[in-house]
């Protein structure tokens, strides 16, 4: 009896774990996407912080 209850429990836990894996796989990483978007927007709109500015200005000086 005890053993049967356990196997039912184990089976449902297994099903839950499997479901969680599937969910995680299709889950969209919203926070990571925001960070990626911000990095690209910095680059495109040249909103880069001070540390990156000298790099951007360097190619212009030789002319």
């Amino acid at each position, binding site marked *: 009896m005890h*053993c049967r209850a356990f196997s039912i429990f184990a089976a449902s*836990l297994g099903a839950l*774990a499997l479901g969680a*894996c599937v969910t995680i796989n299709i889950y*969209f990483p919203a926070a990571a*996407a925001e*960070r990626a978007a911000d990095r*690209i927007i910095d680059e495109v709109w040249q909103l880069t912080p001070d540390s990156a500015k000298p790099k951007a200005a360097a190619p212009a000086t030789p002319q």
Partner: protein
Amino acid sequence: MVYSNWIRVALLTLCIGFVDVAAAQANLEIDTPAIAALERSMQQRHTQLAPLYGSGAVGLTRDGNIALRDANAVPLAQRAQVNALIAAENRDRAALYREIALANKHPEWESEIRATFAQRWIERAQPGWYYQNPSGAWVKK
């Protein structure tokens, strides 16, 4: 005996859970040659687009594109050129959203990436620029 098995299963499940969450919170891959090329192309175009955002001629749409908002703010002679700029920018943006989804091996993420960008472009726009609110009306930032 039964309980020690149960604890083992629970711990294993927890570990797998943590690994999954850690993977999901890692950064998205954006360092590919295709994405870098699109970034450069958009960065160069931005020098021409920035004054148009500033004058309100062009605004940021709610779907992650840009659009002609006020044609009267553009001299007639330049309208064709501005329309071409907008079309080229939107092509690059569509390619960018698609390339990010592909680089992360989830092509189905494209629309969510576009939605994320739509929010972030608007959030980071300069004061005075126009953007579309969720109902599609133009709002000055």
